[in-house]
């Protein structure tokens, strides 16, 4: 029973050294189009403007994202009122990545209708959701894995612009989110990108850290006790 506690603790503390962790500032999941093909990437706007392939950057979501579901219209994808959630808000919080979805590299007049960003796969310890907010605060759900992944899990984006949405997770841990862009180019016709996988690292609240570390300590104690019990 104690061994499984070690696994999440290790998952939280082992870094991926070859990746850039983005903890704050404006950053976009960018969509470009070159040589008749979509180019999905990460476009960091501040503190330095730089670009990464999807797998090269990790969106590190700190404890400032921790909150609870307000219930009501949010219940269907964030859980009942009081359920813990981690949210990257569509409004800027200086302690969190300000994640947008950018199509500014596309020439608007080259496209018919919106660009669609479709969810293809998610791996992680909890559910993953993206939603907008109406002028009076009602959630406008775009993507949610609560009911699995369907063709309806997609984000419409206006070419030549960018948008901000709320991105939510139901549990801390590492998530891999695979997205695919599609749209109708006026000359090249309907185009679909290769799938691109983005990484999110949701850091638990301090209380959850304490739970994970206590599990880590309990696991270490268990290993030590096993070692002491082995015949010499």
């Amino acid at each position: 029973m104690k061994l499984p506690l070690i696994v999440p603790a290790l998952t939280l503390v082992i870094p991926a050294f070859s990746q850039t962790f983005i903890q704050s500032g404006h950053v976009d999941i960018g969509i470009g189009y070159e040589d008749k093909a979509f180019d999905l990437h990460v476009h960091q706007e501040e503190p330095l403007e730089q670009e990464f392939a999807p797998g090269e950057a990790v969106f590190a979501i700190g404890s400032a994202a921790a909150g609870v579901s307000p219930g009501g219209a949010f219940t269907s994808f964030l859980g009942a009122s009081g359920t813990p959630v981690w949210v990257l808000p569509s409004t800027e919080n200086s302690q969190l990545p300000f994640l947008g979805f950018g199509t500014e590299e596309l020439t608007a007049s080259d496209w018919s209708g919106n660009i669609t960003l479709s969810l293809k796969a998610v791996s992680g310890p909890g559910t993953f959701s993206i939603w907008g907010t109406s002028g009076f605060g009602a959630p406008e759900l775009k993507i949610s894995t609560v009911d699995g992944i369907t063709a309806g899990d997609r984000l419409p984006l206006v070419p030549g612009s960018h948008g901000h949405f709320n991105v939510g997770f139901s549990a801390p841990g590492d998530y891999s989110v695979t997205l695919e862009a599609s749209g109708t180019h006026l000359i090249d016709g309907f185009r679909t990108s290769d799938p691109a996988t983005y990484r999110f690292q949701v850091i638990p609240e301090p209380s959850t850290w304490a739970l994970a570390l206590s599990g880590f300590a309990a696991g270490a104690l268990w290993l030590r006790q096993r070692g002491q019990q082995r015949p010499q």
Partner: protein
Amino acid sequence: MRVKTHYSRRRTGVLCLVSGLLMTAARLALGDDARGSYLLTNEHVDLKVILAPEGTNLLQLVFRDHLQSVDRPTRETVVRVPETARLTIPEGFEAVGPAGSDLWVLPAGQDPRLLYLGFSTEGLNLPPQSLELFARRVDGPAQFALWQFDGTGGLSVTFQSRDGLDETDRLRLPTGAHQHHNVGLSKPGLTTVWLQVRATVGGTNAWSPETPVLFAVDPLPKEPVRLGIGPGPSEERWRLSISGTPGQAVTLEESIDLIHWTQRPALTNGFQPIQIPVASTQDSPARFFRVHSP
């Protein structure tokens, strides 16, 4: 002088014909520097803070048009708010307005039918937390409000003119960033919101001028389009003048026989009448001008 007015049931239009332009033996050519206001409808724009060290004020507020990649002076720009922006305020949002009343909302989330209006300090090299935006006054029939929601629906109202505007109506602008808010106007018509930005660096304040942002909220009261002509800056130049409802598109046409008309690109009425320079020479037939508004 207006000599003919045309109204149709399907489309209310106004045709104005200037007959006083019978300038025998004068060739007229319309200048290419005709300037109307730019109408913002459904693109992504930011009210952007820029440095203007050569001017009276260190800071300026302009519209950054991301679609055209240009900065536009706010005085030459009209924000169109169509009827599709009209919502009814639900219970629980009294901070924005009375429940059950109308509010025209440009939302913080992009709606392709409406202007996606943000606030930007991108490109500014100033210390963090040094910029604040103030709403100074509102001229026109509508009350003005600005608000945001956090990810789980928590409401934060920044500007609300309904209870008066004072120093508490301020928006902190992170430097080198941008943000989007819900923008609300309570009545149709023409409402101008005067904004001012302040930078505080090392205990010293720098201000932008009070900057007007004109919202044209549908349905607009229709005013007749008026076309006039007057002397220009020199003997060989005249100046056409078009006025009407700000935000209204107008098209100028010219003819030499009142039968064949040449149409020029549409212009938009703004804060000031549209001025169109007209060059004249000695050997041309008479020219007639008319202006049309859909």
